[in-house]
């Protein structure tokens, strides 16, 4: 009887006290830091919901006394850049029109290139890959003008198509690396068996590789969606003002010198621009982190 009692007694390490000094330090630090990180988001939200008189009187951290959505409406539909006063919606739709083809084209090309580099290597393919990876470190400023010339020669300078080409080019290093590193981990036997059965380049890609690689496609798309949406430099350099993406238009609205600054409208516009990548981020969770890790740790 006593034997079984000792045997069935509490096992495992002694439970730790929840409120040890160590835990208070640990969680205290993390909570303070987290609050600091959340502060700008909070400030954006409360500022965008206040009227201008309230902003002039109160402080930026205080919650709105009277909630108004007018700044959001104005930012979306009425804010001016230059002579155009149709708000940020124009930039939003430009960004969408840039984003969708850019993501589709760049992810397709990067995945096929990664597939070639992992399963259909040929003499010299590794050298091109090495150059491609080194290309990721070239400051964009070095290539800005040569790419202008290429686009002009192709008749694409200033157009949305041109920008799609640019995003595909500059998204290649990281995404090809991502796909190649993933594809080389797939079992080689599968590939060999398919070839013995007579499947060719595209059949193997579409029917064997694709179904096994959906997560990595999602990771690549996350990288591209946030990267392309957040791009500013390429938008400014390679598109005409009527095609400016949202980031460029946002900057022009907020930093324009004419007129009285409407901080609530500015913050609503800023939030609107940040909304797409934030949504992607909050919904993708671990895959977003995986995208970063893929680029960083293996690079």
């Amino acid at each position, binding site marked *: 009887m006593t034997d079984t009692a000792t045997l069935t007694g509490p096992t495992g390490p002694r439970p730790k006290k929840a409120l040890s000094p160590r835990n208070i330090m640990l969680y205290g630090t993390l909570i303070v830091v*987290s609050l600091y*990180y959340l502060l700008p988001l909070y400030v954006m939200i409360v500022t965008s919901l206040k009227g201008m008189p309230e902003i002039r009187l109160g402080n930026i951290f205080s919650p709105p006394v009277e909630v108004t959505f007018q700044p959001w409406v104005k930012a979306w539909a009425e804010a001016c850049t230059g002579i155009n006063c149709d708000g940020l919606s124009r930039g939003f739709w430009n960004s969408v029109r840039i984003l969708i083809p850019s993501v589709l084209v760049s992810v397709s090309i990067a995945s096929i290139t990664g*597939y070639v580099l992992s399963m259909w290597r040929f003499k010299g393919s590794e050298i091109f890959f090495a150059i491609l990876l080194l290309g990721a*470190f070239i400051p964009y400023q070095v290539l800005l003008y040569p*790419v202008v010339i290429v686009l002009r020669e192709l008749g694409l300078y200033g157009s949305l198509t041109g920008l799609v080409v640019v995003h595909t080019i500059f998204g*290649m290093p990281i995404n090809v690396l991502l796909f190649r590193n993933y594809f080389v981990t797939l079992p080689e036997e599968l590939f060999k068996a398919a070839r013995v059965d007579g499947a060719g380049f*595209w059949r193997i890609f579409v029917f064997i590789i694709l179904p096994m690689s959906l997560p990595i496609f999602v990771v690549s798309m996350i990288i591209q969606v946030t990267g392309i949406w957040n791009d500013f430099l390429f938008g400014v350099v390679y598109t005409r003002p009527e095609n400016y993406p949202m*980031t460029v238009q946002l900057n022009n609205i907020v930093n324009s010198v004419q007129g009285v600054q409407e901080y609530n409208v500015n913050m609503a516009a800023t939030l609107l621009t940040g909304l797409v990548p934030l949504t992607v981020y909050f919904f993708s969770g671990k895959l977003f982190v995986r995208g970063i*890790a893929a680029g960083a740790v293996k690079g």
Partner: protein
Amino acid sequence: MSSAEHAPAGPDKRPIRLFRNLWSKIAAIPMILVSVGIFVGGTIWTIVYSFTDSGLLPRLNWVGLEQYERLWSTRRWLVSIENLAVFGIASLILTFALGFLLAALLDRKIRFEDTFRTILLYPFALSFIVTGLVWQWILNPEFGVQSIVRGLGFESFTFDPLYDSSKVMIGLLIAGLWQGTGLIMVILLAGLRGIDEDIWKASRVDGIPAWKTYVVIIIPMLKPVFITALVLVTSGIVKLYDLVVAMTSGGPGISSEVPAKFVYDTLFTRQNLGQGFAASTMMLVTVAIILIPWALLQFRGKKND
């Protein structure tokens, strides 16, 4: 589909080498065009034209090192370089210190790890334009931090980095750190997770305090992760552009100009191509100085394996 290599063909039917697996070669064309045509070709083009007197349009009229001499006697360029150095060193030290501290805290088997990580990383999902504009608002001297602290009774409190040319880089740094620390934290956390649990057990058995284990054992073990992150962050810092445009537009005066902005302005608004090419070549040289030792290190490391 049909041209892919099938089961071994007879020796007499063997196709020419170049056309074997034709599709794989066609599929590699974008990579070849981008790597050779754009990356190598574009870089060489820019370097070559930096030795010419190209103005509004590129032209091959050699002037030797004149563009570089002019560049290094331009005050705006010198300020840009100095700003980049200050910003770069300060943000490297601080992002790594903070990033590692946060990674170590998150690695202590805490509850709500996912929540904390999500909060600390979300700024990284935002663009530099959004980041710059929010912090411009928070640091606004009339409404932001300064006015709030003054409102608390400290009438003479002054903190308006964006309007003070001696402190403007601090303002940029605050925003840059907010945006970028999460990235380093995540990379280092991935590195920490890769460390064998037994090492922790062994150090605990020997009675070594946690902080000492980090300094003496863990950090040296993470050296490859640190170096890779360092290269990544540094080549990102050299590109610093959008944040400056959104927060200060290079002001007050020229006190927050950076090389990437110098290049853009010189190429596209002042249309002095030769100067722009020389400046961007200098940026490339900077990256090369950082990159080459790293590449050699990686290469040597692989040989030793």
